[in-house]
């Protein structure tokens, strides 16, 4: 098994264990704190990761990403305020449990469920990623183009919020991706004569603006704690025997839902957790206990979001198509290191692939330790008010972006994107699909051009390739579905 012969020797070096721990520690930290998302945290640490070996960088950033899913439930349970969006649904039953004096067992159960979901997700990555990579080895530009197109449309149509707006954000991201000198013709595209834009700009700048700055502006004076918080002692953590019996099947169902939605582009942990909760409600005859502190209602979504986070690595590492906006940012980190994720990654860089997977096991065990015996630390961190937090976030954004190229111009771009992001947020446009569009846009253009050269400009010739035709057909189905939903919404609204 490559995991043991290649993966663990890489992941168990002192430096990789150290950065894995740093990643999951900081991940839990930002996960616990409401108002700062995992994506912002990954973007904040990205400049630091440029100095690391690519494997170590992905181990750390990955740890940050799945660590945030553990931490996020703490705020949901204790404050009724989700630490990250994918833990919002945990508030529904987690907070009532805390009100009943069962905050300890709730925290224990979410950690166990998270670990279970992550373990199932990681096992799936181990077995499915090599299979998918083998299948994708035969891909040419036409297949890549159609697979990425499907990914983009899926990112738009399956995310949260109104589909047509998400699709518009995807296309906006693709447009931002055009900026810079065209590698094929040498045309200066949307550079406005500014030398800093000739090579385009890294995804971190977009992510810091649309997520970091926008989040800060939207949270100041608005992020208020509701209710009061009790202290959690270690003795009160243990769930009852009955709890353990009741969470068994919800965890399995949650992990299954999460593993299904994780690899699909656009449907990340947030959607997985909401759907897992909805399914859980359907599975019980007595649905009235949900919302009143049902342990099933926290076990299933927490297993789902962690399974989704782990499985979102499958398409990213094997096809180069990010499964979520955070994965898009991480893909950007790999590209900076000169690594183009694709089907050859597992063969050409087995240390990276298996090392990262082995680090998932190590990181999740760290997280179990951090979140059960040491839960008291995180409860105390929750009491840090946002007015001390946001100056810190702003400093990290400024210095992090400035340090990329020692350029104040880059920080200026972050501000512009931050304002644009806030305006679009006010109008209910989600920024996540845009990041996926930004990272996939240039690749799609490249593969589109190449396949058009091969078919001599005949778009319909693409349908002669079976795999391509399959992807394109799925794309058309998704777009038709979006159109149908949009039209139905108009009709419903105009009748009422």
């Amino acid at each position: 098994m490559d995991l043991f012969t290649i993966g663990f020797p890489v992941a168990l070096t002192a430096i990789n264990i150290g950065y894995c721990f740093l990643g999951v520690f900081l991940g839990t930290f930002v996960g616990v704190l409401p108002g700062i998302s995992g994506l912002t945290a990954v973007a904040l640490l990205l400049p630091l990761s440029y100095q690391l070996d690519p494997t170590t960088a992905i181990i750390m950033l990955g740890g940050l990403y799945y660590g945030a899913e553990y931490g996020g439930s703490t705020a949901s349970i204790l404050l009724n305020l989700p630490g990250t969006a994918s833990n919002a649904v945990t508030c529904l039953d987690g907070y009532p449990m805390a009100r009943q004096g069962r905050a300890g067992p709730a925290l224990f159960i979410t950690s166990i469920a998270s670990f279970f979901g992550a373990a199932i997700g990681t096992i799936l990555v181990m077995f499915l990623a090599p299979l998918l990579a083998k299948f994708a080895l035969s891909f040419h530009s036409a297949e890549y183009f159609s697979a990425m197109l499907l990914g983009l449309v899926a990112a738009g149509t399956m995310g949260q919020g109104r589909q047509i707006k998400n699709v518009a954000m995807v296309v906006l991201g693709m447009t931002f991706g055009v900026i810079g000198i065209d590698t094929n013709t040498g045309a200066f595209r949307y550079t406005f004569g500014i030398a800093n834009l000739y090579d385009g700009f890294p995804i971190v700048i977009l992510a810091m603006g649309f997520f970091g700055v926008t989040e800060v502006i939207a949270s100041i004076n608005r992020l208020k704690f509701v209710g009061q918080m009790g202290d959690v002692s270690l003795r009160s953590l243990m769930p009852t025997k009955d709890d353990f019996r009741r969470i068994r099947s919800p965890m399995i169902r949650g992990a299954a839902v999460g593993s299904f939605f994780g690899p699909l582009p656009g449907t990340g942990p947030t959607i997985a957790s909401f759907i897992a909760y909805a399914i859980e409600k359907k599975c019980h005859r007595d649905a009235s206990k949900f919302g009143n502190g049902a342990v099933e209602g926290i076990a299933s979504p927490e297993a789902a979001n962690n399974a989704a986070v782990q499985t979102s690595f499958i398409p990213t590492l094997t096809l180069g198509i990010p499964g979520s906006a955070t994965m898009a940012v991480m893909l950007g980190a790999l590209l900076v290191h000169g690594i183009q994720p694709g089907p050859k990654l597992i063969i050409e860089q087995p240390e990276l692939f298996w090392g990262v997977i082995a680090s998932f096991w190590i990181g999740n065990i760290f997280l179990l330790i951090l979140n059960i015996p040491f839960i008291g630390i995180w409860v105390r961190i929750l009491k840090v008010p946002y007015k001390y937090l946001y100056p810190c976030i702003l400093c990290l954004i400024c210095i992090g972006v400035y340090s990329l190229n020692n350029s104040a111009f880059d920080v200026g771009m972050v501000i512009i994107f931050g304002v644009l992001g806030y305006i679009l947020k006010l109008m209910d446009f989600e920024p996540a699909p845009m990041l996926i569009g930004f990272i996939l846009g240039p690749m799609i253009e490249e593969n589109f051009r190449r396949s058009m050269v091969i078919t001599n400009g005949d778009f319909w010739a693409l349908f002669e390739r079976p795999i391509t035709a399959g992807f394109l057909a799925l794309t058309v189905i998704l777009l038709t579905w979006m159109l149908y939903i949009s039209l139905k919404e108009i009709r419903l609204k105009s009748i009422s």
Partner: protein
Amino acid sequence: MKNWKDIFGGGIFVLLGLYVLVTAKSFGLGTAARMGGGYYPMILGAILMALGVAISLIGSRERGSPLSINFFPLVAVVAGLWCFVFLIDRIGIIPAIFILIFVASAADLERRWGGTAILAFIFSLVSWLLFSILLGLPIVGIRGLI
């Protein structure tokens, strides 16, 4: 009340798409088999416009909720960040961070200026120690001094 959020939001996309579409011509369109630099952006611009029109149309036929702009934080945060941009290369990281925090804190309804000054002082010093000294990034503390 109509859904002005979507009507305006769609409008932004229409204008952006129009700009992208019109300027794409100057990059050279080429043919489908030999695409110029403008072929792909032209497609994107057209899609942006079409989606923008659709979003506005849907918005004009339904009811919406009013905007709730977090106005003061928007101004304070943006002003603070611009201060950083203008100061970092001219006078160094310590004053740039100090002023960034001072200006951005103006947004906080519960701020006390004394506390803000202490916070700004600590953050500017820690940033300098962490990034310039510990991580060794080429950023000066205060130009001409450290």
